[in-house]
């Protein structure tokens, strides 16, 4: 069972959780870390540390690969290897919904692999020409 932490620039993480709750109902177990323009890297990192302290098996979903939220989460991962922290970028509504649906079943490592694998499937085009229809009679 993994603990899920959303971390992103501005209030994206907080609003991502709000939007996910519109679809899936309340998600009290999902934690949020916001990163504000006035903040430095160390402050962000210590907020992530506080959020995951005393926890084990944690999946951090960050907004942008190489951005400060992602980097700070990776720094925490490197310093707290015993806590089984995994970090994935590309936070989006479908990924958050998938992660919350699976967090009670999968370990953070399995959840990470699953999200990385399904990520590209979440970008889909509107396709007006439908596949051959399975008609009922």
């Amino acid at each position: 069972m993994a603990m899920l932490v959303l971390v992103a620039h501005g209030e994206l993480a907080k609003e991502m959780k709000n939007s996910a709750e519109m679809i899936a109902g309340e998600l009290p177990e999902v934690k949020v870390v916001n990163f504000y323009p006035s903040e430095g890297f160390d402050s962000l990192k210590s907020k992530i540390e506080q959020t995951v302290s005393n926890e084990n098996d944690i999946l951090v979903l960050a907004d942008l690969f190489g951005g400060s939220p992602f980097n700070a989460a990776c720094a925490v991962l490197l310093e707290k290897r015993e806590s089984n922290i995994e970090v994935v970028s590309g936070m989006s509504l479908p990924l958050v919904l998938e992660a919350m649906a699976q967090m009670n079943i999968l370990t953070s490592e399995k959840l990470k692999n699953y999200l990385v694998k399904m990520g590209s499937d979440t970008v889909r085009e509107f396709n007006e020409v439908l596949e051959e229809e399975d008609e009922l009679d």
Partner: protein
Amino acid sequence: MKIKLARIDDRLIHGQVSTVWVKEARANRIIVISDEVDSDEIRKTLVKQAAPPGVKVNVLCVEKAVKVFNNPKYENEEVFYLFTNPQEVVKVIEKGIPIKKINIGGMQYRSGKTQITKAVSVDENDIESFEILKKLNCELDYRVVATDPKIDFEEKLKKYK
């Protein structure tokens, strides 16, 4: 046909349905039962393209839905029925499809309707249909999302009668 879940939701296949309710239903086919959507090519196309991965979607009018339900070919097919209104739920039950429980998820506000919960607005015609559903022993299950606590939907209806 095995009915895994039946829901009234006039947004049909949208976020709540394609991510949460489909999993809850564990059905491999969604059947939208609506005379109106069935005769509207644009809405029909939009509903079908929103099919969640691995789930088939069909749009049928009431009459066709009853015929399909009774076709022995689909005896083991597990389905999730979606309706846009309670009137058509009454119709299909009266025509022999045994729906024991109807999940009420969303009926948007239109002029002439009264909003009774955050996601449901009704008029006299809707209230009458819900009363008929009760008489037909169809349980009314008001939940927008699966984790919503059950509320007494009949009480909500009574207040606005």
